[in-house]
């Protein structure tokens, strides 16, 4: 049964562990940069939370040891089945310079990391890395959670909505210049005939979870910061600091460095922080910022809708019909990428998944797996009672539509024809087969097709043979 195989395949893909997007970037940084980053307790705590569970336990086990312990001692704690996971974890920590590899056969944490992380757990010190709270001001009380949430949501959806409706006739609100530049630099949008248009990477980006989208953009921001000669440690430190801050509290900008003050403007555009005025000396992190290192949803449920995006709003039936309980223009626009929409009601959009609509999405660079995972992650609570979650017929059909596009495969090569005799043909063909360069053969017409790479050999072989027969 193909359907069974497809399902088991997708389940395996989900279980496969996915490294956090930031870690490869950090691993590419110099030891010096990393050590400077680890000077701040808040950075250590946030980074720690991005690691895998086994890595976290290894750090914890080593944290309070004063001297290095032999690797063999630590190995005795590892179960045989967990050996591979453990070795991978040690290697990752080594690349992050948390477990320096300069000691032979001994394990000890990076001294800077150890000191800062201990300080993070026990409190104390004078680093102020968890954000200096602003003095209470009676004239302008702190923003309440609701307005912070709606601010973050509005900013974030403006960006996504701009992306999704670029290239159509709609004229959505433009995000700020900085955001547009970032979108362009990250390859999510590109200029096409003088107009910014979404790329296939951009389409794929739209179907990611908000959490992944946020980190994608921040990662691009970090790359950009490198080019702008901004101090990476300051930038990362500030992002990590935001992730440990409290929602609904105001923090003072006075202790921030010049780089970090410059970042305030960018982060405001992305909706990560809120400021009363651009010149204000205080700022509040939004939910987007405070959930950076957690699994809780970074965006509040959209207003005026009982079954918001976090709970899921899509019902997919076996007859390919899609009912989306939403009034959110962004969600409707994203659905429009792969669903042909039929009716719109105040709180409901009805459409169906057709061959044309899916092919349009595939042509935009979206894969079948992305469509299916989007439908899964946004499934309505009612759908969650089904097992499997999505109708198998629809899942299979979407995958089959994707396979349909891959019917033709082109390969460059040479066609060998006009052999003098059947013996000649078979002799050369045998040689080509030994080299494993034959792509197609037709014995009745005495011709075969070889790859580009094998041509030199076959040509030489035929020439040698021709010369041999002439003599």
């Amino acid at each position, binding site marked *: 049964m193909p359907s069974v195989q497809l399902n088991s395949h997708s389940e395996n893909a989900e279980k496969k*562990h996915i490294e956090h997007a930031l870690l490869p970037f950090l691993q590419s940084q110099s030891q010096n940069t990393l050590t400077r980053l680890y000077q701040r*307790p*808040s950075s250590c*705590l946030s980074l*720690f*939370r991005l690691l*895998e*569970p*086994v890595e*976290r*336990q*290894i750090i*914890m*086990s080593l*944290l*309070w*040891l004063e001297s290095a312990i032999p690797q063999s001692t630590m190995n005795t*704690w*590892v*179960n045989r*089945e*967990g050996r591979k*996971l*453990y070795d991978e974890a040690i290697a990752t920590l080594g690349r992050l310079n948390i477990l320096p590899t300069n000691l032979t056969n001994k394990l000890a944490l990076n001294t800077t990391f150890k000191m800062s992380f201990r*300080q*993070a*757990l*026990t*409190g*104390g*010190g*004078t*680093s*102020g*890395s*968890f*954000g*200096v*709270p602003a003095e*209470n001001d009676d004239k302008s009380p702190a923003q309440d959670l609701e307005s912070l949430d709606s601010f973050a949501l509005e900013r974030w959806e403006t960006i996504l909505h701009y992306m999704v409706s670029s290239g159509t006739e709609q004229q959505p609100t433009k995000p700020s210049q900085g955001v547009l530049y970032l979108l362009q630099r990250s390859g999510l949008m590109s200029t096409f005939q003088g107009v910014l248009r979404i790329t296939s990477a951009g389409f794929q980006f739209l179907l990611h979870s908000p959490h992944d989208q946020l980190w994608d953009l921040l990662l691009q921001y970090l790359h950009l910061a490198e080019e702008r000669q901004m101090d990476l440690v300051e930038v990362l430190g500030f992002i990590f600091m935001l992730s*440990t*801050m*409290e929602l609904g*509290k105001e923090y003072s900008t006075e*202790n921030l460095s010049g780089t970090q003050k410059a970042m305030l403007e960018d982060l405001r555009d992305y909706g990560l922080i809120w400021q009363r005025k651009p010149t204000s000396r205080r700022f509040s992190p939004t939910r987007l910022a405070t*959930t950076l*290192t*957690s*699994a*809780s949803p970074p965006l509040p449920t959209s207003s005026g809708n009982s079954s918001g995006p976090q709970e899921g709003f899509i019902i997919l039936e076996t007859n390919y019909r899609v009912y989306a309980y939403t009034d959110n223009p962004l969600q409707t626009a994203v659905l429009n990428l792969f669903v042909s929409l039929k009716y719109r009601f105040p709180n409901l959009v009805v459409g169906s998944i057709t061959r044309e609509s899916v092919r349009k999405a595939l042509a935009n660079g979206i894969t079948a797996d992305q469509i299916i995972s989007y439908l899964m992650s946004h499934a309505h609570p009612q759908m969650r009672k089904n097992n499997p979650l999505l109708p198998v017929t629809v899942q299979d059909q979407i995958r089959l539509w994707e396979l349909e596009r891959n019917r033709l495969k082109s390969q460059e090569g040479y066609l060998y024809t006009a052999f003098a005799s059947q013996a000649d043909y078979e002799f050369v063909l045998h040689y080509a087969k030994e080299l494993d360069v034959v792509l197609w053969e037709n014995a009745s017409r005495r011709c075969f097709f070889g790859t580009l790479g094998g041509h030199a050999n076959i040509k030489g072989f035929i020439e040698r043979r021709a010369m041999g027969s002439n003599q």
Partner: protein
Amino acid sequence: MDNSSHLSVVLDLSPAQWYQSPLSLDSFLAQLLVFLNAHIALKHDNSLAVFGALPDKSVMLYASSEPPMDTPATSDPNCYPPFKRLDSAVTARISEQLEDPLLDVTTPSAIVGALTKALCYINRLSVATGLVDPRILILSVSPDLSNAYIPIMNSIFSAQKLKVTIDAGQIYGPDTVFLQQAAHLTGGSYLHLTETSALLQYLIMTFLPPPSIRKVIAVPTQDKIDFRAACFCHKNIVDIGFVCSVCLSIFCQPTPVCSTCRTKFPIKTLQRLNASRPLTISSANNSARPTPVSTPRSAATAARHPPMSAESIQNGSGTSAVANGSGH
């Protein structure tokens, strides 16, 4: 594997025991708070509850699902706010409880009460949010209380049903039989600390990893478990007991009528069991043994009655064998 985990900690705060312990309560709490912070640090969504077992009562000291209202207005820029809240709430509640003038320091602490509260709390959370792999950690300094045997066993059974792992650490004093059994029966880890200088390291390596990590990085396990039970009649911990073949109640000596299910045992079985008892115990307990109250019955009725079986519980071997099979 990377799910958020819930930890409920039951702290034994018996003042009398802490007074005798070489480790002071202050230094214990300081290390414990770092351990609790480490649990919160592992994952943003990790939840935590702390219960205190005081003489004759048990209280909830902290729960992350119900953060304390009286948070300090200005937060410390050098401290992660959730850690700060946890630490100040736990220390404030403990000193508030210990300064209670009505506290009778000699009464043993109500560990079972705290354990039961922890189980109820976990049950409530599981129903509401669906916890994965909840755990209870009991940190005890008191010796076994034999009259707590039955409630502890009942708690263990509820923990098994709720799929809660119970970890136990005996920080001071002799090994406790009951906590060992609790940890063993729920798949947890039991640690008897003989060395208190590195308490935090012990806590982190033994009790911090959630069950999913324990498949990769092992935690100390017991190679010897004391499976002895306490008898239902005198609450003594017994090496050889007598088990009612109907309801499995344990007695330290043969009784004619089971006190739990009121089953009557035939006089002949009683005589045989009494004869087979080790001499030392039978002679020592001879005077205390209650005299048979039942009047002699006819052989026909006696045959209907199930015989009582002797259960020999071998200390440390990890097996308990019923010597005589039940007769019905």
